[in-house]
């Protein structure tokens, strides 16, 4: 090969680089090992993290994944393909995304969906940027003042953080309304009038604390005041709960969330995917990739990326967003998951999670010193008060082999004695009893 090139050595191929730049500082990296040794090393570490039953949710859920999902998704034809820019050579991925767009809009009762973004937190960031572009009638576009986004009630604090960090350099400000009994303070929200009127309102259903927000009242207030509604939803819950497209009289304008519950392992929180859906009228404001159905030269149906003129590789500095990625492999898994479980299976999963969580709350509140912190209905997460600093309780329960919920003091100082707990359809009666016993042992010796 060097002879064909006419170069004396591989080093000669780097002769345009000044010698002083060649590194001699690579010794901090060890010598390589073979695959067997690497796996042995990694397995030793993975074993240290094997834990007992998981009762933590907070945006990542331990659901059953049908065996077929990853057997198919991990096929090299899906896993090692690139973005489907050459449509004729990518009909598998493209048709699958079209089917995904159909399924996720069905779940959310929205008109259109993109091909996904990174995760739930960044999906909310993109939703906020989109809302600011879409709400051109808002007075802040004339005055040049800050574009306020109201956060109604208890939204996932990590989502709010990520969104703040993604949007802050564009004159956007997130304004929390505060909560009453763990839900939106409606008076505070509807008191945002005049100059304080937000461009959009974010509402998570069920909210971060597991409770049901009054989404109809929020959506109707927003609609009457020219405020766009951004819904953050859990896809499993949508088999039971009214979808964002049906909130209030007119529905939400944008719906987003994390697709992890749909056939994706927890895997330390990633990769999963963020979904982002909207009304037909706002489709040109959607960032990211979109797949459309069309025909080929012989009038046969086929699929292709479309409306690419919105995207960064065409519009560059005038693009809606810098995002390129759709989390294709995870969307592949979620699409296969939804096809296999169907509406009946998903509804059974959702009601089973709801039933398991009620059983869990009943068991835990039976432990001396433990009570339910908020009254009112919940779906598959709930806040329990353990009567002492919850971070220490969670660590002690972990010592007994249970991943026992999220201590909330870090986010809400007045909830420092509280754990956010969750039970999915996978948690057996024995798992729940074991958590109850562990909590009893930690709290009451």
């Amino acid at each position: 090969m060097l002879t064909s090139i006419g170069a004396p050595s591989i080093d000669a191929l780097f002769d345009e680089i000044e010698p002083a730049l060649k590194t001699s500082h690579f010794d901090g990296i060890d010598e390589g090992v073979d695959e067997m040794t690497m796996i042995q090393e990694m397995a030793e570490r993975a074993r240290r993290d094997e834990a007992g039953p998981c009762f933590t949710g907070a945006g990542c859920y331990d659901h059953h994944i049908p065996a077929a999902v990853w057997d198919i998704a991990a096929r090299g034809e899906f896993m090692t393909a690139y973005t489907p820019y050459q449509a004729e050579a990518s009909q598998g991925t493209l048709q699958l995304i079209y089917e995904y767009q159909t399924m996720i809009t069905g779940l959310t009762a929205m008109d259109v969906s993109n091909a996904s973004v990174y995760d739930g937190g960044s999906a909310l960031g993109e939703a906020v940027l989109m809302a600011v572009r879409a709400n051109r009638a808002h007075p802040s576009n004339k005055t040049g003042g800050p574009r306020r986004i109201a956060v109604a009630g208890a939204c996932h604090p990590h989502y709010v953080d990520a969104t703040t960090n993604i949007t802050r350099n564009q004159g956007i400000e997130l304004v929390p309304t505060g909560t009453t009994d763990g839900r939106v303070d409606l008076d505070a929200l509807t008191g945002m009038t005049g100059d304080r009127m937000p461009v959009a309102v974010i509402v998570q259903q069920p909210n971060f604390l597991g409770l049901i927000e009054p989404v109809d009242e929020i959506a109707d207030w927003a609609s009457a005041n020219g405020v766009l509604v951004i819904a953050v939803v859990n896809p499993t819950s949508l088999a039971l709960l009214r979808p964002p497209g049906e909130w209030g009289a007119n529905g939400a304008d944008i719906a987003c969330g994390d697709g992890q519950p749909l056939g994706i392992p927890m895997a330390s929180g990633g990769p999963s995917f963020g979904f982002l859906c909207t009304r037909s009228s706002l489709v040109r404001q959607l960032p990211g990739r979109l797949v459309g159905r069309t025909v080929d030269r012989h009038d046969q149906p086929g699929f292709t990326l479309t409306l690419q003129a919105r995207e960064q590789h065409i519009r560059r500095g005038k693009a809606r967003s810098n995002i390129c990625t759709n989390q294709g492999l995870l969307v592949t898994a979620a699409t296969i998951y939804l096809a296999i479980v169907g509406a009946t299976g998903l509804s059974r999963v959702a009601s089973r999670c709801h039933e398991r969580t009620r059983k869990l709350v009943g068991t835990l509140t039976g432990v001396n010193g433990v009570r339910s912190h908020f009254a009112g209905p919940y779906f598959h997460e709930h806040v329990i008060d353990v009567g002492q600093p919850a971070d220490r309780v969670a660590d002690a329960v972990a010592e007994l082999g249970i991943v026992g919920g999220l201590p909330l003091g870090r986010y809400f100082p007045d909830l420092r004695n509280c754990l956010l707990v969750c039970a999915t359809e996978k948690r057996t009666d024995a798992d729940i009893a074991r958590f109850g016993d562990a909590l009893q042992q930690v709290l009451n010796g």
Partner: protein
Amino acid sequence: MNPGETIFDIGKPGRRASAQAPAAGDAPDLPASCLRANAPRLPEVSELQAVRHYTNLSARNFSIDNQFYPLGSCTMKYNPRGAHRAASLPGFLNRHPLAPESASQGFLACLYDLQETLKHVTGMAAVSLTPMAGAQGEFAGVAMIRAWHDARGDDGREEILVPTAAHGTNPATAVMCGYRVREVAVGADGDMDMAALKAALGEKTAGIMLTNPSTCGVFERRIREIADAVHAAGGLLYYDGANLNAILGNVRPGDMGFDVAHLNLHKTFATPHGGGGPGAGPVGVGERLVPHIPTPVVARDGDRYRWVDNDQIPGSIGRLSAFMGNAGILLRALAYARMLGREGMRRVGEYATLNANYLMVRLADAGFELAYPERRASHEFIITFRNEAKTLGVTAMDFAKRLLDYGFHAPTTYFPLLVAECFLIEPTETETKEELDAFVDAMVRIRAEAETDPERVKTAPHTLPVSRLDDVKAARELDLTYSFGEH
């Protein structure tokens, strides 16, 4: 399967995979007003129907596992299965992202090792692994540059310089961070036009975004001069790691004078592209930007690992994802790095460069026109079909589509924008000489076809599941979801 037949077409009302539904429970303890009235329209198929449908769909894809995939700037190298196996170990797959540190020491140790490895790879002082893709790594990089200027009260800097050859994400990122974009011309030799750079630099300059080797497929030879000029003007340098594969183990962004660099683990560290994602775009920073790195990161105290969050890095640009970015991709990259080791990494850059230069010389000898004939290829290079387009009416897109018929994925077409009718070709280090020779043979045969039977090339592809698709109809008559009852 019939053309265009979707999972919705093959269903029947009431059909389902009975093994995949837990027993029905009691009525939910939720107010009727918040319950869904109508079940969502999801597929109604058996498990076998679903498995068969998606297996058949997978066969309608090109992939690295099936085809040579010389997409310039995308680094479509082999994705070792061992890395996938390692990341799929039960202890990793079942770990909850908010599990206590005491139950997470294995995972945290892996992240710590990857941070350290990437510090050495980039020549930087610190690394944060959280960005979930190259574009998010870019965002983190420019947001840190902004945070650094802001922290110094230097708030008159409103411009980010970007070369005309840059990826579209670069200008889009600068705008997301609240900057104006000022483009800087690239000279005829593929290097930056130094006069244009010096004219653009000034008190408004916040920084510059550069890829090196550049998207022209050549190494920016005056990089240290550029770094000195940007620093002298008070700006910082951001390194787009899209092309790091070319110099892995040989040259480091930190030594070139960059203040921040992102890496595309889905390129240089061989994690699978997954049909469009996930990727991962960790950032490495020089001393000046350490106080601003995105959170969370991992620290080690003796033999114990712990999370470091905003409370300990008050100047951080903060969290960019719900949890820890694309954690599973980070594990795959660590597994790959562990197998390569330092000698393996050096070989990656060397063999990627060798393969590119070999393919470039072979194509040039076969009569294809190089965009930068006087230059070495980096790990990729550009050829232009401007002559074929003019004399034969056959464009770069036509060559690309015809290559699909020959069983090769097309190279990147029409990028960078400053070279007409171009292919950006990146063979990567994992291809054999025989594969490169077969690609040259196909290119030569297609040009012969273009001379004798141009229609054959202009109407390609002919052997794929669909022929060339009507993009205009797709955009004009938007059909983004299946219409139930209309097909």
